[in-house]
């Protein structure tokens, strides 16, 4: 029973289904691990709520009406609104806020039988790459508590890595699932934009925000993603009108037959993204790219080589506008954020300043007190790029380049089935290292931003340890709606390797 927390989602679901363990036992075991809030990963825990759900699940398991993941615990990033637990989005602005409804993703996972363990720390309004921007304190990396867990879904990644929960939800706007998954040595996937409903997700950048699962393996991610996705046309106009899929269906396909035409899988690696592929041809691009730290670079290349060993073919592709993804992303995301966060004005909900002279003063003080530095920085950036006289030069230009970046991917996918590359240029840095240098942390988003801007499905899976003994992630990017293909490739890798089973000492 003490080892319950070491089981994967798939294993727990099987144990529960075969009644070898009850949902209440599982919940109790995980709740016991949350005492003292390790890594500051959780923002809200309510054992009564969790146990009530677990009892419900046990009843369904007994009655034979169980969902596919009945009784398996999950914790939610604090940007998903929940009825039974507070939702703060990591901000003082929403301290103690209680939503009258559950996010669609939360409701769907509950419907599949999952039991909510609590709400997870994150960067304020999902803005950040290190989880240092939370109003409720930074999250530490279970592999080395002096290091950041990545962000913005840092609490989710740390909690899964430390085996505080078998699974977590995350959201990814510019890399917020993939980068913390890489930094914490777990597996996470961001589906195609529109696959998962955004209803009930506190909005950061509407055209980019997308929910996804974070767990220990591709197999678990496939189970979770199948439960999360599906059209939600009555609540989210950007929800895709495509039927829910079983994302586990292709997990077992060998890579030698996983290509488009049933032939070998073709893996495209963008020129300049990895050192081995930095030839003369790619020099013009590589100059603009931050190079990946040597050990991480080597791990990623080994990961690609493992896929080749299994029969995949490597081809070089070009994503010539990669470097432009950074300014484009920070224009588009900030523009949308500046507008999305206008509703936090102290009038209807959220923080309101205690003293103010008049309406304008109330707005100013409430927002000055409620928002943290990084949120203010992005609101100001966004308001600036949308201002009269600057809109064409920044926002419109960014939209044009965003289209070019998406087009680059389509040219690439004409030649390959999936794209492989780094998630981040380094392993997790030390807490505080980039806290005062926002631009340095923006630049580290270089490899995750292009797929976000294009709305493509993409994931991160662990491929070993890099500098400082910290985990390294391999990024896989697929064409639209090709999540099953990504999970297929990742699962085949994980069948042959054990990197995803490595765990930090803290997880014992």
């Amino acid at each position, binding site marked *: 029973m003490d080892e319950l927390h070491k089981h994967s989602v798939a294993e727990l679901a099987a144990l529960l289904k075969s009644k070898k363990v009850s949902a209440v036992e599982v919940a109790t075991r995980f709740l016991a691990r949350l005492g003292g809030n390790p890594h500051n990963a959780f923002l809200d825990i309510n054992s009564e709520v969790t146990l009530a759900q677990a009892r419900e699940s046990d009843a369904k398991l007994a009655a034979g009406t169980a969902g596919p993941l009945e009784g398996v615990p999950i914790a939610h990033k604090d940007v*998903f*609104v929940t009825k039974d637990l507070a*939702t703060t*989005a990591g901000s003082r602005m*929403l301290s103690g*806020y209680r*939503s*009258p*409804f559950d*996010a669609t993703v939360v409701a769907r996972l509950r419907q599949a039988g999952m039991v909510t363990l609590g709400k997870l720390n994150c960067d304020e309004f999902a803005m950040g790459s290190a989880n240092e921007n939370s109003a409720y304190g930074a999250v530490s990396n279970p592999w080395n508590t002096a290091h950041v867990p990545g962000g913005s879904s840092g609490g989710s990644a740390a909690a899964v890595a430390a085996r505080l929960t078998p699974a977590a939800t995350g959201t990814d706007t510019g890399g917020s699932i993939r980068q913390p998954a890489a930094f914490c040595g777990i597996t996470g996937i961001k589906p195609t934009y529109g696959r998962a409903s*955004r*209803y*009930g*997700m*506190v*909005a950061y*950048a*509407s*055209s980019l925000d997308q929910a996804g699962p974070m767990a220990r393996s591709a197999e678990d991610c496939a189970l979770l993603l199948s439960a999360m996705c599906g059209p939600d*046309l*009555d*609540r*989210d*106009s*950007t929800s895709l009108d495509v039927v829910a899929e079983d994302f586990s269906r292709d997990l077992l396909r060998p890579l030698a037959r996983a290509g488009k035409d049933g032939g070998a899988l073709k893996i495209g690696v963008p020129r300049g993204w990895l050192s081995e592929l930095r030839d003369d041809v790619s020099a013009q691009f590589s100059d603009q790219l931050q190079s990946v730290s040597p050990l991480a670079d080597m791990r990623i290349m080994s990961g690609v080589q493992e896929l080749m060993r299994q029969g995949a073919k490597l081809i070089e592709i070009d994503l010539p506008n990669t470097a432009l993804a950074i300014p484009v992303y920070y224009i588009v995301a900030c*523009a*949308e954020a*500046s*507008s999305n*966060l*206008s*509703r936090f*004005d102290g*009038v*209807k*909900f959220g923080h309101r300043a205690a003293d103010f002279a008049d*309406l304008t003063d109330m*707005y100013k003080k409430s927002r000055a007190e409620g928002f943290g530095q990084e949120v203010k920085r992005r609101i100001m950036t966004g*308001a600036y790029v*949308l*201002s*009269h006289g600057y*809109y064409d030069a920044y*926002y419109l230009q960014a939209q044009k380049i965003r289209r070019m970046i998406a087009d680059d991917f389509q040219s690439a996918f004409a030649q390959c089935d999936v794209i492989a590359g780094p998630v981040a240029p380094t392993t997790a840095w030390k807490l505080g290292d980039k806290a005062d240098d926002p631009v340095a942390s923006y630049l580290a988003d270089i490899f995750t931003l292009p797929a976000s801007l294009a709305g493509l499905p993409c994931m991160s899976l662990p491929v070993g340890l890099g500098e400082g003994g910290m985990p390294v992630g391999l990024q896989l990017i697929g064409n639209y709606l090709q999540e099953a293909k990504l999970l297929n490739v990742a699962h085949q890798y994980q069948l042959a390797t054990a990197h995803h089973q490595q765990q930090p000492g803290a997880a014992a």
Partner: protein
Amino acid sequence: MSAKLVQGYEVVIGFETHAQLSTQSKIFSRAPTAFGAEPNTQACAVDLALPGTLPVMNLGAVERAIELGLALGSHIAERSIFARKNYFYPDLPKGYQISQFEIPVVQGGEVIFMLGDEKKTVRLVRAHLEEDAGKSLHEDFIGQSGIDLNRAGTPLLEIVTEPDMRSSDEAVAYAKKLHEIVTWIGICDGNMQEGSFRCDANVSVRKPGAALGTRREIKNLNSFKFMQQAIDYEVRWQIEEIEEGREIQQATVLFNPDTGETRAMRTKEDAADYRYFPDPDLPPLVIGRDWVERVRSEMVELPWVMAARFVRDYGLPEYDAATLTQSMAMAAYFEETAKACGQPKLASNWIMGEVSRRLNSSDMAFARLLVTTTQLAALIGRIADGTISNNAAKQVFDALWSDGGDVDAIIEAKGLKQMNDSSALEAIIDDVLAANAKNVEEYKAGNVKAFNALVGQAMKASKGKANPAQVNELLKNKLS
């Protein structure tokens, strides 16, 4: 076009009208739109802009926009874009209003109407969909303001014209025509007191032939009377300013009905930067030809189409047809009556005359008329077959108006039947001729008025029951 000048200045007016669309639910949420509910009882999580909520387009609002576009000969954009207009105000829950900015759903078109005997055309620039804001309540909250979000998210169609109007008369005639059209096609209830149809008038003046003057926008004109007063005042004010050597500053002004004056709310210098950008929560609104055609096929007959049909099928003069098609209720009333009695011109006369007069004097709408078309048709039938005179018919109508009942029974009860028996009438006429020898003489001497006096005497003697045509004929015979 004959431009009417005011003190040597040409008046230039353009309109922006907010028509509240007659959908059951809001434009981006499922909350109801009914007017007059307790504050904040008709606002859902989406209207309150709670974290995590998203807008979903109400297709009923889109269909109403398509209907207006079809009615006015506009282009219906196959792809239009919703944008966010960002500003802070307590009654704007999201901190931005969702509206259409660069690419509206309805583009171009025109409103054609009569100003006196002159046909006028006002061109539309566009009509776009947007959401209304809530209301700030500044009374009854000692020291604080209350916010009622019932109206937040109510669907509006903002209808924008070119600066084509040249007088307050023309502006009011345009607004009345537009009001008639939106209520006729049923996309708006047209209730101006409740704010369902609000007009903003952009007014400027210039010397004939000069470039457009600087305009001031009079906001929220919610009655035709105030509209006229406000524009007239504004025109006089602007001319006075210019005559006294001052320049007009672009401004937004409010009309105060108590003082009859307009006053500036804000000038251009205060104009906010709304930081418009396409709303990433709403994909482009795509309207396929098949959707447009379906809406077209389900649309009611337009008033000018119906008027042309009245001329063609019922032989009505154009004036009658245009008057009868000012409201759907009136047109329908006419058509039913005309069909039932087979006397379209008589029906038209009665409806435009007696019926309208009675409705106007009791300030009632056509829809509330209690005299049925069957009753009116029966009445007209009795005039046509000579049973009663026109005057007697008015008495019957009075009875129908106040008490209802059967037309023939009323005629009987009131003894209004015309005397069509020629021998009885001849006896009366003989008596009249004998008693009015002077008139007879005068008539024979060529005085036509004397003949009319004789007719009057005969009618009087018959107690109004004689058929005037018959009296005329008999008299002429006797005097010839």
